[in-house]
């Protein structure tokens, strides 16, 4: 049952062939069996999940129409507030915090009857690309337990790829949904900025952050996308427009006559050979399906990484000021006579990890008087040029494509002491965030040299998210018929059973 797609599970629930309680229990059993190895979850809420499942089963029995994926279980990235359930954003500074409210994403999941099984591991405050920056230890890639599942949403990608959950929520500030999806052989979508409410999403970089769905198929991902998207008065940057018809697009999956632009700057040098090979092969498949392939030039993308590593740390240095040891979270050094400032500084030292401190200090530097124009100011101007590059490219093509990440999953510990090497892994995903548009990663096969998954990235203009699903579904169907079985069937068995 756990190896079915979410769409199949929803279908079986609708036909009365199974119950949400049984489905949820099967996944909780899977978590018990394999999460000791994978470590995808920071907190499993078995009791809450089963109560939710029971409630959905009762509503269905009464004939209530709930949602297309009512009763299907899900894993939630620990960056989203869920009332009464521990929420840490992977940080020691929030250890033990139980939010007194639900994020909008959680409210929408609950009202759609999606069962939330627990909170998944992540790089602290979503700062990282490997989940190694979690304050609670790393998550391990189900394809090879010595490797990272990507990040920052690595707990969510590992949960879905190890069949602990059919669906998961992540957040993507510089690639944190698409890159872990690529490294674990699943589908991940970063919706258009403003398409999914940020209310209750613990902020890292507010102009770049966006929550989005993970699934094992394009259709499953679309079904979840449709549940969480939509306007929210509690998020002033939420777009007040209808949700793009992503489920219909995922069902149609036609690229005949579609213009697909290959970004010159996001391939070739710096990309692992097996990654480039699978990417080129997918392009040929799309051409064979009737798409027109064109090359587009985005010269400012060369600076995207530098722009991101100024804008995101600058915004984070401001956002993380709220962790002041006064209203929630950790407080240390509160002894008689200690000033508020001393308590604040001691708490932030004890509660924040190395990468978070590094980015706060970098942001503080980039925003300080005398350096502001040279760093943050210049970065904001190049951000404009990147947006203009996209506009020109989308005038020539309906969607743009690239490899999602320059390499397959790397070893845990390999890059943790070399921040610049780690940052380079985001080179192909960051431009989407800077421009506020949408992007998908879907599996393009395994790299010949290491038999690890490769991600194919599709990008579309703001609020044209349906194009991702349309092109993605076409490529997915063609690859599936070429392989004969879903890519995850090639992953090694977990739990000792080889």
């Amino acid at each position, binding site marked *: 049952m756990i190896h079915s797609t979410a769409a199949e599970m929803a279908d079986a629930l609708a036909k009365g062939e199974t119950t949400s309680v049984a489905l949820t229990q099967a996944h909780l059993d899977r978590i018990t069996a394999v999460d000791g190895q994978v470590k995808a979850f920071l907190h499993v809420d078995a009791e809450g999940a089963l109560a939710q499942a029971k409630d959905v089963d009762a509503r269905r029995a009464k004939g209530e129409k709930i949602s297309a994926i009512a009763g299907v279980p899900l894993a939630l990235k620990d960056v989203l507030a869920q009332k009464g359930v521990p929420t840490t954003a992977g940080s020691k500074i929030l250890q033990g915090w139980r939010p007194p409210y639900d994020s909008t994403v959680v409210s929408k999941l609950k009202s759609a009857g999606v069962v939330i099984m627990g909170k998944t591991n992540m790089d602290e405050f979503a700062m990282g690309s490997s989940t190694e920056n979690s304050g609670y230890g790393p998550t391990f890639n189900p394809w090879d337990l010595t490797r990272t599942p990507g990040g920052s949403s690595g707990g969510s990608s590992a949960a879905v790829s190890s069949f602990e959950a059919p669906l998961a929520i992540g957040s993507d500030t510089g690639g944190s949904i698409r890159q872990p999806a690529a490294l674990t052989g699943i589908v991940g979508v970063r919706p258009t900025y403003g398409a999914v409410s940020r209310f209750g999403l613990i902020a890292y970089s507010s102009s770049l952050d966006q929550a989005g769905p993970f699934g094992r198929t394009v259709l499953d991902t679309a079904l979840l996308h449709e549940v969480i998207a939509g306007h929210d008065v509690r998020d002033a940057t939420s777009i007040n427009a209808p949700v793009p018809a992503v489920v219909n697009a995922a069902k149609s999956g036609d690229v005949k006559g579609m213009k697909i632009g290959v970004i010159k700057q996001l391939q070739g040098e710096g990309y692992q050979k097996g990654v480039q090979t699978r990417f080129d092969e997918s392009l040929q498949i799309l051409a064979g399906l009737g798409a027109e392939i064109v090359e587009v030039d985005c010269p400012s993308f060369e600076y995207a990484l530098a722009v991101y590593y100024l804008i995101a740390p600058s915004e984070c240095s401001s956002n993380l000021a709220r962790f002041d040891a006064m209203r929630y979270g950790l407080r240390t050094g509160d002894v008689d006579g200690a000033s508020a400032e001393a308590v604040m500084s001691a708490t*932030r030292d004890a509660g924040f990890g190395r990468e978070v401190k590094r980015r706060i200090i970098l942001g503080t530097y980039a925003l300080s008087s005398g350096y502001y124009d040279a760093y943050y100011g210049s970065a904001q101007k190049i951000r404009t040029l990147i947006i203009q590059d996209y506009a020109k490219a989308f005038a020539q093509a309906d969607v743009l494509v690239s490899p999602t990440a320059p390499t397959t999953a790397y070893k845990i510990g390999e890059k943790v002491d070399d921040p610049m090497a780690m940052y380079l892994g985001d080179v192909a995903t960051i431009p989407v965030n800077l421009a506020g548009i949408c992007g998908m990663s879907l599996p393009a096969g395994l790299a010949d040299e290491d038999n690890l998954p490769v991600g194919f990235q599709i990008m579309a203009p703001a609020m044209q998210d349906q194009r991702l699903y349309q092109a993605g579904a076409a490529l997915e169907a063609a690859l599936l018929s070429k392989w004969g079985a879903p890519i995850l069937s090639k992953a090694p068995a977990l739990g000792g059973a080889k």
Partner: protein
Amino acid sequence: MSSLSRDDVAKLAGLARIEMTESELVELSSQFGMILDAVARVQEMDLSGVKATSHPQPLENIARPDVVLPSLSPEDALSGAPAQEESRFRVPQILGEAE
């Protein structure tokens, strides 16, 4: 090659209200040169006449009708407080020296 001395990092850490250990200050200062060199590339381009983008959406002020919506009770708002007293957040001394 850019660089940031241990004292520069200590000053920034003070501004950011993070009390860092000596080894953290030394480590950060040694990593900063490389990171600053990488991000300083934004200064290579001629950006005269280019407008800055602070946000991907052309936003204007967003207002909603002035109606009361449900919000947290005092108990809920205080539920995560490290310390509380008389339905308020209790904080360390914020003004002047300790008596």
